[in-house]
Structure formats: structure tokens, C-alpha cells
């Protein structure tokens, strides 16, 4: 395991939330940098070069969306957006503006740490370009390079689009993908609003891969936002 402490930047105006996140990591596990305004956050991003940024959307001085855009202009550091429930539109906008994932307040600390781990892995994948490690969860094994999918050791036949969709999720394993991102990637930009395509294909994928399609353990629906491939650990 990676024993290096992770460098984490929290851009959030509520001190108790910052404290809570900070407290969830032991002193050897993470270096936590804090910023309570957007301006300070941007400066801290440049100065500390964090591995993951946690960004609150409701900052006092600047719109969170704008912060997202500005960071993305010069940095690929994964951004996880902190947002309140009911702000699905803002979340989607942030994701489309370059954020990598989101977590809804109030959040479970374990869940947050899982998101951070997924984001770190994703960042590492981007750097090494190594996408050939087969994905495994439960009895499912997905070999993106070999275009093969197994369930309990038996090969599952997928249509080309089903596979494209699944491969996309695997490349972003553990992280959310918005409807728009999925549709544009698989069917093309002209289909960005054909939400029912996704509904139909996700249904098909679940029926082929999940043990109980109504209680998915592999592909999670992020209501109003998109889909997420769940990962172990």
C-alpha cells in the first residue's frame, strides 16, 4: 500500500466540515490544506499541488463552477465537489465543467474516503495510461483490452454499445459519469439528450450482469446525475 501521506486540499467555507474531514485522517495518512474562499483555494492549488481537491459549491466569494473551470485550465488534479442535496443541477454543471466526482452533504466519512481513493486511482491511471488491468468486483470480471466480460467464470455476450458503455464506466471506475458524458461518448454528441437510451441499456446491462437487477451491486444510479461503477474497497 501507498504509505506516503496524501495531499488533500479542502476548499470549504464551513470550518466544522473542514475539521470533520481533517479529523477523519490520521496525521500520517494525509496532509490536509484548507482554504475558506475561492480565491484562497485557487492560490493553495497552485502552491501545494494537491493530489485531490474537495470543493464546496457554495463559496462566499465566487461561484464553485467558476473555480472548477479555472482549476481545469492548468491542472488535471481530481476535483470532488461537496454539495447539498437537491442541487443536482449544480452537480451536473460542475461535473460538465471538469469536476471528477461529487459527494452529497451530509456524507458518511467512509464514503468520502472511498471517493477520494477512487479519485486518486483515476489520477494515477491518467498519469500511467495503464488501462489494461482487468476490472474485478464480486463475480464479475471485465477485460476492457480483450473486450471480454465474465460473470462467475462464464463469458457474457454484450452488444457493441453495451460494451462501450461498460468500458467507459470501467475507465472511470468508482467515479460518477453524467448522462451527457455517457451519451456523447457512446452514441455521439447528437444523442446527448436521449436519456431513455441510457435507461434501456443500463437495464439490459444490469439484467446481464447483476444477480438481482433491482438491487444493483455493480452499476449504481446517481439520481438526476448519472451512473457510477462501484469498486471494492
Amino acid at each position, binding site marked *: 500500500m501507498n504509505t506516503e501521506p496524501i495531499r488533500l486540499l479542502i476548499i470549504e467555507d*464551513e470550518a466544522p466540515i473542514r475539521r*470533520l474531514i481533517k479529523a477523519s485522517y490520521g496525521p500520517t495518512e494525509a496532509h490536509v490544506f484548507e482554504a475558506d474562499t475561492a480565491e484562497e483555494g485557487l492560490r493553495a492549488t497552485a502552491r501545494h499541488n494537491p493530489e485531490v481537491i474537495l470543493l464546496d459549491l*457554495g463559496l462566499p466569494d465566487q461561484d464553485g463552477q467558476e473555480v472548477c473551470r479555472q482549476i481545469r485550465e492548468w491542472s488535471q488534479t481530481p476535483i470532488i465537489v461537496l454539495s*447539498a442535496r437537491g442541487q443536482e443541477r449544480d452537480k451536473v454543471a460542475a461535473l460538465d465543467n471538469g469536476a471528477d466526482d461529487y459527494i452529497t452533504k451530509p456524507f458518511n466519512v467512509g464514503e468520502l474516503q472511498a471517493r477520494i481513493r477512487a479519485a486518486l486511482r483515476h489520477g494515477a491511471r491518467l498519469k500511467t495510461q495503464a488501462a489494461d488491468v482487468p476490472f474485478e468486483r464480486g463475480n464479475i470480471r471485465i477485460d476492457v483490452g480483450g473486450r471480454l466480460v465474465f460473470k462467475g467464470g462464464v463469458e457474457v455476450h454484450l452488444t457493441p454499445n453495451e460494451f462501450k458503455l461498460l468500458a467507459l464506466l470501467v475507465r472511470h471506475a468508482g467515479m460518477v459519469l453524467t448522462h451527457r458524458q455517457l451519451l456523447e461518448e457512446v452514441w455521439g454528441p447528437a444523442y446527448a439528450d436521449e436519456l431513455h437510451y441510457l435507461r*434501456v441499456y443500463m*437495464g439490459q446491462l444490469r439484467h446481464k450482469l447483476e444477480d438481482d437487477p433491482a438491487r444493483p451491486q455493480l452499476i449504481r444510479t446517481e439520481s438526476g446525475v448519472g451512473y457510477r461503477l462501484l469498486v471494492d474497497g
Partner: protein
Amino acid sequence: MSQRPDPDALLAKLATEGGATERGCLKVYLGMAAGVGKTYTMLSDGQEAKRRGEDVVVGFLQAHGRRETEDLAEGLERIPLKEIPYQGITLEEFDLDAALARKPGLVLVDELAHTNAPGSRHRRRWQDVQELLSAGINVATTVNIQHFESLNDVVAQITGIIVTETLPDSVIQEAQDVELIDLTPDELIHRIKEGKVYIPQKVDQALDGFFKKRNLVALRELALRRTAEAVDQQVRTFRAAEGVKESWHTSERLLVCIAPNKLSTHVVRAAHNMANALHEEWYAVTVESTRQVSEAEAKVVYEALRLAEQLGAKTSILSGAGIADEIVRFAQAHNITTIVVAKPVQPRWKEILFGSVVDSLVRHSGDINIHVIRGVDDGAPPANPLAVRNKTIDWRGWGLSVVTVALATVACGLLDPWVKEAGKSMIYLLAVATVGFSAGMAESAFASLLAILCLNYFFTAPRGTFQVANPQYYVVFTVLAAVSLSISALATRTREEGRQSALRARRTAALYELSRKLAATRSRREIAEFAAEQVRNVFECDAAVLIKSRKTGELFSAPGSRSGFENDDKEIAVANWVADRGTRAGRFTDTLPGSSGLYLPLNAEKGCVGVLAVLLGEGRALDGAWEHLLQTYANQLAVAIERTNLAKNSTETHLEVEREKLRSALLSTVSHDLRTPLAVIAGSADQLRSSTTLTDPHDRELAEAVATEAERLERQVRNLLDMTRLESGSIELRPEWQSIEELIGGALLRCEPVLAGRSVKVSLPQNLPLLRLDGELMEHVFINLFENAARHTPEGAYVHVTGDQKSGDVEILFENNGPCLIKGEEEMIFRKFARSASTKGRGSGLGLAICRSIVEAHGGAIWAQSIQPQGVRFVISLPLPDKAPEAPVEH
């Protein structure tokens, strides 16, 4: 190139046709007299319509005891007649309200010209029919030719009977269909003799009176002509719509002059017939001249104007000294081509002396045609306007004459030695002129006669006698008389003009004052108060303004009248009727004339905004000018009230926007300020709970309690906020294609911890269609239902979710085997803050209320049922979308 249709005509046609879809259609069965079979034909057609499947009812049937007619009505639904007690007897009338409430497709109403019993809503049945039509009900009715308003005189001439039950021609003109029921006079007489029309006792009387062959032939001709005109009208409507060039000159305009005498209504009818035959636009005017007009004359003029209005004329009241001049001026201003006047009724000598209106019209009218109509000789001598004038003898005028002439005589006597006859006549002239300036014509004439007699008796030779020696005195006497009369005529006219212009000035000033005040007033109450006060003062009556509430549409009396007459239940009903229909009613009108007040609607651009109620003292009549002015007041008032209504609306919209802003600001603040600390508490407790350093079981328990309770509090706050958002309407639905399975899966994932220990099974059919739903909200519904199930079932219970596609919707069932609902709770649990008696107050009492709000916002329904022997089932029914989404394509 074909002629383009006249846009105005097209619009009018559109209005008629557009109206026809909302307004009911009228079919009229027209006959020349009773007994031709109108009712019979109407009933046969009614039966036929019923066979075709139409909803036909009989509103009123006048069978005159004829068996075949009664038999024919067999099988048709009848609206029970309304019984109206009147002077000890009970009259049976058509029940308008029952018909309106029944709202049939077609209602048969016999005898259109009938006059309703006193106490009915309308004075006449044709008004009942109008109301049925405006309610969108089709009406078939019967009428005889003699009841046409415009034919009233002609019928009187033919039959010698004056028909009192007349109806405006416009009622018939509105009919989409006029069917003539024709029978030759001989056949009709034969039928009467057979007793098919009247009971035997009445046969002879009928045949000797109205049903003389001579009469019937003439009436038949009238009926045939009228029907032909109706057909002609239809042809023209079609031709106009198709852009066919009209073959007649359409710029013809006709003007009828109304004078205060009995001929006026006759002239109006004649003018209407002319205008109708030539398809001309027509006007009716009267001139308020300097001549004093009695109340009876004013009434005659007013009635003639009303009649003209009913017959479709545009009416106007002119004022000025020269009657003919005013008429010609009006005619020129309105491009009148023909002026219709009655033949003069005054004796020839009067015309020579005072001139005649007809003469000066002929002389001054230039290229306008003058059409002079003869009066109808109805046996009664024409009413002498002077006879009905209230005569109050002005003794001062007569006294003045006597005194002045006496003084002149004394003066002449004193100056006798020095002044000759010529000088004395000058002194008398002075006296007579003085009288002429201040007294009326009769008094002046008397004074000049007195002067001549005195001059003759006392001062001309031979003195002491009335003989005249020198013929030149006749010249002196004549001059004396002529001068005195002309001065008096001039003076009288000037005085009268002064009076008229003072009156006009007063009215104008009052109107000006009203509009000025109305413009400066902001609140409706003030406007109404002021207007009521003005009406009371200017019209010397009691008045109230009733304003229509913008929210409820109910009338409220803004400033009450002095006597409070408008608060009577009956009067309130009249006022409401007026406010609903936008037409006037009450006293002096044909609708509910039995009420004590007159009610004018305040019609503004966006409909009726209120009612002006006016109570005139007993015995006071409504005259034309008065009514015009009152109407002008009402118009001004309507505009002013509408203006404040609009201003208020915009203020309210503004306020609403502000309120909404405040509410959402408050919501987000509360949501943020409550939930951030809660999130921190829950998060911290959670960390504590899972911390490896916390070893004391007691401390662990405490941390556990903090964590679960914080989570519960979080849920409560969430539900409260959601309920508030849903209720304030600040949540906007964003429907997208959703899969039920996916939504339930998402909800289940979130609820896994609370559902621990329950066996949850979801079995949805695989072909369940996608629905247009707001995913987040609907997931919320499922989460609430799962949480609800967890709360109300013991560990080890099962929760089973199934779904089914019905014809028009999809049903999703949540079943559990927890305790049953107590009877009556099925509905109660969906109410806010309501909890089932079987639970011990664990939930917020909002979860199910939120579910219902959300499901109903999607056009669906949610309900609960108990399952025997144990368990509860929640059913969510969601409508299927109009069309399914297109299937995805595989590239």
C-alpha cells in the same frame, strides 16, 4: 381578378360562426296565424332529432287542448313548469332555471312572443330564449307573423287589432333557421271549422274576428315575405363571405327623425322596414329644442328611441334651437342619404306662422333625399302635446302686462296735452316691448291687445269709443302687435336657449368633475364612494356602487346607498345577474322589471367590473338624456375601476415575486444553517463509532446513539424542508424518461441500513415501460415508502415490491406484513403530521404526505390498503406517457 371579401364582413361572419359554436342555434317555426301547425311540426322534428340520438327536451308546450299535439309530445322529456302565484291564481310558466340546469342539447319552447307572468326573471319569453342560447343550448320555437315588432302597424292596419305582444325583429334575424309553416287560408278556415284549432265554443268568434279570409291572405303574404327576407339574408351572408360583389349600393344611410308625438313609433317602424328592405344602415335622432317638452312627450320620444335601438338603429339625442338645422348637420356629418320624417300633424296656419320642420328640411337638406311618411289613422286623435303639459299659470306675466299697459296709459294721459297719437303709440310700444322681454308669448299677445284697446279707447278719435276714424291707426295697431310678438318670441327663445345651455353646462361640469376625481383616486372604494355620491346629487336619486371582487367574483357594496335598497335578497339577485351577463336589468328594463332599482353593468375591456345600482323615487320616469348621461357615468366608472384593478394586479404580482424570493431565501438559509451542523454531528459521531481507540462499551453505545439520532434528525429536517418546498410550489417538476426498476434500486441502496433485518424482494415485470418522471422526487417517494415499511414492521418481516402495467397507467405495489391499518387510517396516514396509531410516534408524520404530493404532481395517485390477515399495501398509480420513446439504435 375576383373581388376580395370585405375584412369587416368576414370578421362579422367569423363572430357569428364563432359565436355559433358557443352560442346555441335558434330555429324558428314561423306561421301566419294560430292553427297552421307550427307546434305540430316542431314536435315532429323534435321526435326526429331524438331518434337521431340528440338530447331533446320540451321546455314549454302550448297544446291548446289539441289531442294530436299532446300525443306527439309523448316520449319527449318535459321540464316541469314553474308555478307562479299571481293575484290569487297560479300561473304556469316555462322554468328557465330548470332548463339551464338540465342543459339539454335541444329545448323546444313554444310561443316565443309570450309575456311572462309578473315575478319571472324576464318580462318576455324571447329573453328566456336568449339566455338559453347564450348558455349554449339549442332552441326551437314557434312564432306568428303578427308578433314582429316592425310589422306591428301593418298588422294593425290589416286586422284592426293592435298586437301588444311584439318581439324585436333582431331575435328572429339571429335565427340560424326560419321554417315557414304554410297553409292556404281556405285550409286554415276549414281546420278551424272542424274544431281542430279552437274549442267549438270559440270557433264562430274566431272566424268573425281575426280569422277573416281577408286578414289571413294579407298575413300569409307578410309571412311569406318575411321568410323570403330571411333566406335573402342567408344568401347575402354566403355571398359576402365568398367575396361576391354586392349588386347594390351599400353606402346608403337612412336617418329617421323622432318628434314628440304619437307618430314617432310608427315612423321608426316604417324607417326600419325601409332600411331593412334596402339593406341600409340607419340612424334615429331626436332634437331637444328650445321648446319646453312635457313629461309625457319626453316619454314618447324615449320609447321611440328605445324601439329604434331594438330594431337595430344607432340613436342619438341632438340639441339646438333649430330642429331642421341640427338634423341636417347630423345628416351631413354621418353621410346620410335619406331622411325620413312624419307628415306634419299641425294645422296649416301654424305652419305658415311658425314654419314647419319638414319645409326647412326640404329647403336645407341639399342632396339628401327627404322621405315624408303619412301618419297612421288609428281612430284616436293625435295626442295634443299641449294638453298633457302641466299647466301652472304664471300670474306674474299677466299681472306685469296689466300693470305695464296701465302705466303707459297713465303716462299718455299725463302727456296728453303735448304728445300726439303717434308719440302715444310709441309709449305703448315701449310698454309692450318691456312685457315681451320678460314674459311669454301669450302674455305678450295679451299685453299688445290691451295696449291697442287702451290706445284706441282713450286716445284715438273718437275718444271714449272703440271706433277708429282714421284708417292709418290700423297700421299702428298692427305694428304694435307684430313688434310685441316678435320681441317676445325672440326673448323666449333666448331664455330657453340659456336654460338649455345651463343644463348642458351643468351636466358637462358634472361629468368633468367625475372624470377628474376618478383619475386622481387610487382605491376602488374611494372611486365607488365618490361616484355614488355624484350620481345621487346629479340625478337626484339614491345610488350604490357594487364592485365585483377580483378573487371570488362576488359583488360587494362598496359604499352602500342611503336607503340600503340594494341589500335586499331579491335586489342582490338582480345585481348578480347583471354582473354575470354584463347587460342591464331591473326597473325600466325588460329583465326583472319588478325590482325596485335599476342596475347598470360597469363593463370595461376585461369584462364586467361591477354594477351601478340606482333607485329612483316613486313615480319618476327615465328619460333619454338622463339615461344617456347615467350610461356615460357608468362607462367612466367602469374604466376607473378597471384601472385600479390592473394597478392592484401588478402590485400583487410584484409582491408575490418578492414573497417568493423571500421564501426561497429563507428555505435555503434554514436548510444550510440547520443541516451543516447536523452533518458535522452525524459525521463526527460516525467517526467516533468506527474509531478503533474507543474501547469502553458504554462510550461506544453513546457514540452509536448520537450517530443514529443525528441521522434521524437529518431525515426529519429533510422531510420538513421538502414538505415546505412542495407546498410553496417552489419545486419544479423535471420529468425525464425513467426506469422504475432503476429508481427502486437507487432507493433500496440508500435504505439498505434502515431495512436491515427485513427481507426485501423486488419483482418487477421486465417489460415495464419507461415513464416520464422526475427521478429525484420519485426516488424520494420510494425511499419514504421503504423507510415507512422499516418503521412499521418488526424485524424478520418482509417487504415485497411488485409492478403491473394497466391500460392507462403503471401500478407499483409495496407490500409488507406488518400490523394492519386501523379502519379509517387508510386516508388519514397521508395527511400531514398524522401517524398511525399502531406506531409509537417514530416518524415525522410527513413522509407519506410528501409521497402523495409528489405522486399527485405527476398526475398519479397513491393509496393504502390493509391486507388480510396481516399487512399493508401501498399502491402507486402513475400515468403512462402519451407515446413511448423511440427505441435506441445500435450503430
